[in-house]
């Protein structure tokens, strides 16, 4: 039991020391198809307080993030992206959020993906 407690404490200490990075870098894969998606993805990223820079690449689907670890986390940002209708590695957008997307941005549909190739 003691070891478990110690491990848990150490885990927290670790998070705290590394959590100080004000310009933490992360790369997240976000699904989308077009420049409208790009706008939406980047805007949704900025909705999360602490995000300093968000640039999404329409070809690679890679979202490059810079954020303050004291204020937010990748998971938080991903949750906000999913809320805006975009799937990420760990979060899948709800049907409701997805359905709200512009018809041109329906990235789950093969025909839409084909259109943007």
């Amino acid at each position, binding site marked *: 039991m003691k070891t478990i407690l110690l491990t848990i404490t150490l885990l927290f200490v670790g998070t705290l020391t590394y959590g100080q990075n004000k310009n933490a870098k992360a790369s997240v*894969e976000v699904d989308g198809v077009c420049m409208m998606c790009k706008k939406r993805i980047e805007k949704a990223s900025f909705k999360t307080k602490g995000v300093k820079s968000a640039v999404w690449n329409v070809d690679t689907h*890679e979202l490059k993030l810079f954020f303050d670890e004291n204020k937010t986390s990748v998971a938080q940002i991903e949750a906000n992206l999913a809320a805006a209708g975009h799937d990420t590695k760990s979060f899948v957008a709800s049907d409701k959020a997805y359905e709200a997307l512009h018809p041109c941005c329906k990235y789950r549909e093969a025909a839409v993906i084909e259109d943007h190739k």
Partner: protein
Amino acid sequence: MKSILQLIILLPLFLFSQKEIKGLVMEQNSNNERVPLLGANVFWLNTTLGTMTADDGTFTVPYDTSYKKLVISYIGFRTDTLLIETPKSIFHVLKASDDLGEVTVSVRKKSSATSFLSSQNITTISSKELLKAACCNLSESFETNPSIDVNFTDAISGTKQIRMLGLTSPYILITTENIPSIRGASQAYGLSFVPGTWVESIQITKGAGSVINGFESIAGQINAELVKPTTDNKIFINAYGSLNGRTELNTHFNTQLSDKLSTGLYIHADNRSQKFDRNNDSFLDMPLANQINIMNRWQYVNLQKGLISFLNVRYLNDEKQAGQLSFDPKTDRLSTSVWGSEIDTKRFEISGKFGYVNPDIPYRSLGIQVAYSAHDQDSYFGTNQYDINHKSMYSNMVYNTIISDSRHKIKTGLNATYDRYNELVNSQVYNRNERSVGGFFEYSFDNLDALNLTAGVRIDHHNLLGTFFTPRLHARYTPWEKSAFRVSFGRGKRAANIFTENQKLFATSRQINVQSSGGTIYGLDPEIAWNYGVSFLQGFNLFGRKADLTLDFYGTNFENQVVVDYENPYEVSFYNLEGASYANSFQAEFSWNLMDYLDLKTAYKFYDVKTQYASGKLEKPLTSQHRYFANLSYEAHSEKGEGVWKFDATFNWLGKQRFSSTEISPQAYQLPMYSPSISTLNLQVTKVFSEAFEIYLGAENITNVTQKSPILSSENPFGPNFDTTFVYGPIFGSTFYTGLRYKLN
């Protein structure tokens, strides 16, 4: 205890293990081999059920008949969604998303485009547009662009002057790679000192512009990006010959010395040694000319450390001879029997740029620019002598960062300049030193959608202009799709270099009359103006083809101006403005992709430029109120760009232009109130043989429109009515040229 824990962890697996799908994910690498992909995401669409592939690329996901779409994704690869009808094992190969080998890019980029997104009204002219008119230097680069007017300045020097929003080039900040370059002594001929092949692209900003590059810009900013050692062709050769006697040679050599250091050597030479006098007025229609222009660039790039640096060294020697056919500079210099003129310019420039971007924090960067130039012009026009020596230092430091996030950007920094002018106007010496230091702060906001704005302010301390603020604001709003609505306003202040900016006055018999008011620059006050503008851009489809419509309205109001008054035919006077001086301009531009590979660009412009002269409030001389422009360009398409033909036609129509008053001249030397309207047509054909080689053939002013007698009193050049400044149209008439371009990479 242990076994219970294991049981709990494994329980879900047991539960679902009745139905699951196994599979293998591989990637196709650059050698076309398939290798297992580790760490790819495999999940059911619209669920949170998923997994990652193991070291050997295999995966196992739970399955239920309600799951249909399985998504396989990996950063840097195209995400694929598979339709699963029955639970079977899956084998899938992911493709790298940048693997666009089989995709042909069939959308042709426009050669000049106005930005839909920037807060400033910026038109970018790409190198492709620059090829539309093969000739020859920066001043001629604008002939296929309706935002800039290109006019002849006088009947002697063959120089072309540009105008924007109805104002002449001294009111435009002209920079090369964001370092102010065409200013001071190089104002009159500087644009012809930048060879066209050196220019990579041009950005034209209408309106006040940014505060970063200084306080001088009033009508707008023109920035020329030069070719860079890392992106230019390894070898480039351009030869040009025209029936008007002009020959040109441009060569570029670029080498990469190491993975970080590259250098380029650019040499331009042009020559015109044939004399022409088609209108038989005993004067050369175009000056004899000789120019050698050498630039050496060094580029250092270290992306790991985020460093970029440039070093430029440039030397120019330009000689022009103009005047009467029989003039021989060896024997007739400053003579009173044969009228002649020589303009010799030497210029040396060295500039350095240094940029640092923190690789870990890319939105923070630092830029430093330092430039030095020495410009030396010795010239005479008939019996008028004019020499100017201008030494200039420029330094600028900009720090870029963000506030809270990258939608809020700030740029702040300092700059310092030093200018030293030594002028000789006949026997009068004018010496002047200008020093200034300033700080600036610019904030820009971009909501990533419909709105962005740039607001800047700078404060400068200048030994002759005093201490002053320069505010500037640009904003863009997109109310609906494919549109941009822009507003801008700003202030500009500058010291007018009255002689060098108005050098054409020396090729007249006019008396120079500087009406000093005790000011600090030639006894005159600094020029101050406010510029404001609104602009609207709309993109749409017309008969299924892309089209753009731009409507611009810009106004410039002078608080003070150094008025250049030609209204007395025996004098040219300079005095401080008393009353109003303004330049209003309206432009409607329409561009349309008529057919595949055929583009039309057309524009109408209206100018209302008036100044309070001593003799009354008058239209600015030699500025037509109405102008019309059209450019039609066709570029045939082929798979590899071989055997392609390109055609270009540019039409310009200028309405009547006011002549400054000649009322008190004798009848023979009186001109009407207005010039006739004129129109010109230029054509060019280019044949691309291969990526490496192309030939072009063109005709300038093909309809042979000329101004019949551009020089007043040409039969008596030393008489009191001699004047070469009443030029409203082409002097030479039609001419043909041809040239070739060779590129090696």
